[in-house]
């Protein structure tokens, strides 16, 4: 990869340069609102101020990919976001819900994130930049990152067009794609061969994440699943915030998936009695199947659940095993086919019976 090293403060100029040099028409990036972090869509470069104080902030509100879902525009927009968000964007590109040519994907390193509200509450202790030591220290105080982040193996920026990595008090900026390298040269960065793979660190993160995954409570029976989903009110928020749920009209908003009136009575007649709202289990099981290859494990579903069901223990955990059998990591590459659209002549027989 081609890249260079910058100081944290240089990032402002870099982002402004992208807009200034018409590399992109707009930029979606985090900005600070009080003690919280949210996204803004910037067209005026002057609005980009001290990005280094916010783009690495360990906070998760919305998955940025969900913001651009369905943007089949011709203009070019840069997206500065965490790996899970960019991975979702890449899945959306494969699903034709985002125009590949119209986005410049800029992935930043993530050290794990707190829920937006947790972050706001403990902003004073957490600050803008954290590292693993700091996270441990915070955890000791009872301030923990989201479960989804704790089990995340992909915190280092390694996908998208451009990556922004934190290394030794500086930032490494590198282009992964032709488009990314072009963008970097357009803003006048001196480019050289740069290796930002950080294999050792990656291994350490993966090991830690797997350990944390093992520690999560398992839903290993139907009874456990029933108990787990007991409080679900089928509000479908988990679906609405999911960056890779892309249906124009969800099956569970259609008459067959969302029976009312007579249809519901028929069902009740058939089984004697039915739970209402109906289809609670079918909804979640179907949904986990629908996203099993594309789920980027961002945890947005859990954040959105009004009943605080720890959905990370369900969606990403179940999906990950499916991704393993296909040796598929969602959001790695826009060119990689979706697992359900391809096959090998001989495969998977061990999974069938």
């Amino acid at each position, binding site marked *: 990869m081609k890249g260079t090293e910058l100081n944290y403060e240089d990032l402002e100029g870099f982002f402004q340069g992208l807009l200034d040099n018409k590399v992109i028409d707009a930029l979606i990036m985090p900005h600070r609102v009080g003690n919280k972090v949210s996204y803004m869509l910037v067209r005026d470069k002057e609005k980009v101020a001290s990005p280094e104080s916010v783009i690495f902030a360990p906070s998760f509100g919305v998955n940025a990919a969900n913001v651009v879902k369905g943007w089949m525009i011709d203009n070019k927009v840069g997206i500065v976001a965490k790996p899970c968000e960019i991975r979702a964007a890449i899945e959306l590109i494969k*699903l*034709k819900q985002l125009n590949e040519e119209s986005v410049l994907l800029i992935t930043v390193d993530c050290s794990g994130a707190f829920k937006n509200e947790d972050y706001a509450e403990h902003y004073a202790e957490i600050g803008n930049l954290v590292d693993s030591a700091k996270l441990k220290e915070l955890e000791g105080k009872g301030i923990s990152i989201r479960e989804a982040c704790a089990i995340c193996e992909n915190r280092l920026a390694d996908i998208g067009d451009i990556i922004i990595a934190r290394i030794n008090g500086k930032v490494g900026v590198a282009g992964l794609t032709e488009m990314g390298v072009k963008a970097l040269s357009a803003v006048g960065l001196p480019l050289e061969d740069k290796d930002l793979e950080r294999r050792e660190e990656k291994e350490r993160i993966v090991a830690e994440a797997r350990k944390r995954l093992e520690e999560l409570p398992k839903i290993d029976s139907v009874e456990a699943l029933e108990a787990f989903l007991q409080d679900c009110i089928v509000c479908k928020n988990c679906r609405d915030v999911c960056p890779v749920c892309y249906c*124009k009209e969800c*099956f569970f908003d259609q008459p*067959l998936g969302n029976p009312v009136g007579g249809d519901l009575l028929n069902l009740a007649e058939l089984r004697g009695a039915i739970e209402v709202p109906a289809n609670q289990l079918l909804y979640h099981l179907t949904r986990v199947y629908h996203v099993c290859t594309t789920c980027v494990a961002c945890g947005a579903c859990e954040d959105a659940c009004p009943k605080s069901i720890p959905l990370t223990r369900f969606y990403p955990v179940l999906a990950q095993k499916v991704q393993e059998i296909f040796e598929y990591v969602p959001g790695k590459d826009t060119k990689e086919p979706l697992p359900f659209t391809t096959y090998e002549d001989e495969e998977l027989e061990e999974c069938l019976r």
Partner: protein
Amino acid sequence: MGIAVIGGGVAGITAALDLADSGYKVYLIEKNAKLGGKVAELAECETGIAPRIVKIENHPNIELMLSSEVEGLSGSAGDFKLKVSGKEIDVESVVLAPGYDVFDSIAKSYAIGHPNVVTALEFEGMLRACTPSETGQLVRPSDGKPVKRIGFIKCVGSRGKENEICSTACCGFTAKEAWEVKERFPGTEVYIFYMDIRVFGRDEELVAKLKDKYGVKYIRSRVPEVIPENGTLTVKFENKPLQGLRGRGQSPRLENGTVERLDLDMVVLAVGLLPSKTLGKLAEIMGVKTDTYGYLETSLTNPLETNVPGILACGTATAPMKVRESVAQASGAALKAALFSERTELIPGQEERKFIEVADKPLKIGVFICGCEGEVAGAVDLPAVVEHVKHLTGVASVNGETTTMKEALEAIESGIVDQGLTRIVVAGYSPRLYEDLFRDACAKAGLNPYLLDMVNLREQVAWVHGKEEATNAAISQITMAVERARYLEPVPIERYPVIPKALVVGGGVAGMNAALEIAQAGYEVYLVEKEAELGGGLRENTELPSGESASDVLKEFVEKISSNEKIRVYTGATVEDVRGRAGSFRARMKGEDGGEEIDFGAAILATGAREFVPEGWYGYGQEKKVVTQSEFEKMLAGGHMDATTIVMIQDGIPGQRSKYSGIQVVSNALKAKALKPDLNVFVLYQEIKTYGKWEVLYKEAREKGVIFLRYDEGRPPAFQEGIVSVYDVIFTDEIQIKPDVVVLSPAMLPAEENEQLSTMFMIPLKNGFFLEEQERPKLVLTPVDTVNEGVFICGSAVYPAMVDEAIAMSSAAASRACVLLAKNFLETPGIVSVVDDAICSGCGVCVDLCPVEAIELVEEPVSAVTFGVMTVLSGKKTVARVIEGCIGCGSCASYCPSGAISLQNFKDQQVFAQLDYA
């Protein structure tokens, strides 16, 4: 006027249906009281032949004359008067399909009469009647003990004194019976005693599978006697030790002349085929010639024509053959007979019809439970089922009275017309074979044919469960079907015109014949040949095994084609792109003079096969004295022979064998011997496959002094330093020969373009050859039809076939194509996918999934929404669209998470309904 088809066996049935389906009046004359002939007696065949019999019985264009015999004929082609059991009928032409009889003077030494010694046909009956006893075993008729060892003895009553020729079919059906035994009673040891295994194409694979996977022991010995002793049957054979008998992994030892004994529980005699006993008399009445063996006389290049114009012959009355060949001949003969006749009848399904609008009508489900001639009624408590079903929501009437399919069909029609039923559930037969018949009945009565559901009570309930269990299962499955029926929707059926033209790909003998046949039937034909000239394999040959000059035959074909104005020949051309469906295809041709679009209603793939160039095998290509059989044939055509010793190596190169390679060997050996009687000719072989009447050539070759040396599969001959050495299995020793010429029989390869044609026409390949429609375990009843309606295959494109077979098959393909082209219009398939634009997100996954590229993404304008004076949301969106060619697999529908794309007749709701009541 009309056409008489004599014989109601599988050939007669096929011919009659082809003719009747294309609008000809047919008299089907059968001497027995029922249709089906020998095939109806085969173990598994009822499932294949029965729907055809029902179709015939209900066909408006067929006059069925059962228990009738032909007594006289007068007149000539176009104006025959046929006397049938006292009645006189006027016909323009006649198709003779009287079938065969089995050899019935079996030598006493086979212990014939012993209950455990049966003929193959009797064994079929046993397999068929073998009801699921609790043990699931095959038992000895004599004492009901399980059969642990069964032996099949081949060539009983054929290839011998009483019946000189080879019965052709036995090797195949023996293999299939052995397969069925192994499949159903895996513990049974199966031995097959044979002389040569004369199977071809996919049967070869079956035999290989039997040997390798099923552990069936093939033993080369013509077992002459069966000795009954203490309840077992002892046979002697010459082979030691039994291959594989003493555990696997042991290298098979070769026969060494020591006689071994084997005790068997049952013996099946693969008894030969003879011409039907009444054939002689029939031939006399019809004035047609028979050959030395008593079969109807036909020729290699005219395999379907008798000496009397207007009288065609087909099936086992012309030579012993398999069902596959027999039905191909029947189709071909039908088309030839049609040339003499005028189309006088309507083609079924072409009449005007209008479907009742059901959307605004109350749901009235009619359930018809058929007793299936006692098959279902005997196993299921029908009154109890009726009582239960009566109370299901939406059920307006339940009919449990019908016992035959004919009755059921009539009851349904009247139920729709008289009671105003809006959904039909039929419980009885398997929908796989009978759905079309029942859909037709609905359509005839004015109900959209997709408002029908079928419950398989016979094959999947009555025949497999005990009575109480069967009744419960029947109730469940009918309930599920009734529930599904509630959600069935009328599927829009559009009619589109049939383009009365055909495309024939391949200008070899099969392609040329097919093109001519179709043109003679009155349709335009595009004949496409990739080479610069027509002829294919004929151009490689000098003389056909019949003695006819290949170039004369070719010349005749080419002349006929060039003088036929209905045929347009494209040489040096290929088909590049195909779109559309049966009745309405469009292809782009790439030829010498650029591209051209052509439209046609049916296509025939007759691409032939090509000889493998055996470069490097036995020194071919390096040593001048090593040649192929076709090269040797050219040497022989030169008229002189310098060599003193010739070695022919048969089966020495692995790969697909042609059906004529054995014939080529003996015929060339004979020709060489004729040129130089004292020539030493050695044929090294594993199997000499001179099937049928060709057996006499083999005998003649032996008599003329050609030496045949057999080698084992694992020890092919070698040719080094001028010496051919072969390990002979009779001497168990190496034999060395110093030949002047070594002649190889190369394997056959499929045409290179098959791969591409397979994708374009959606026809699956097997080993590079085209696969017919139904790959049935036992019978191929539609040998030239494919999974893609409107596309037919024939000749060596299916497997390397002999000239007569290629011609018969291509006539059959032409016949099948003409049945389609005779129609004015066809209907769009009902089971296709549809897209709900409002829901589609345009992700395009369905496009990737579609195996036939029948889905594309399109940009659609989004209709503008107006708020007062302001219009917003106008723009474009991408949605999927199902285009022509959808084959209804539903892969798209089961991906689509929102259900925006769904498969008609298999919509989520329809499946859910069944699930709710499962």
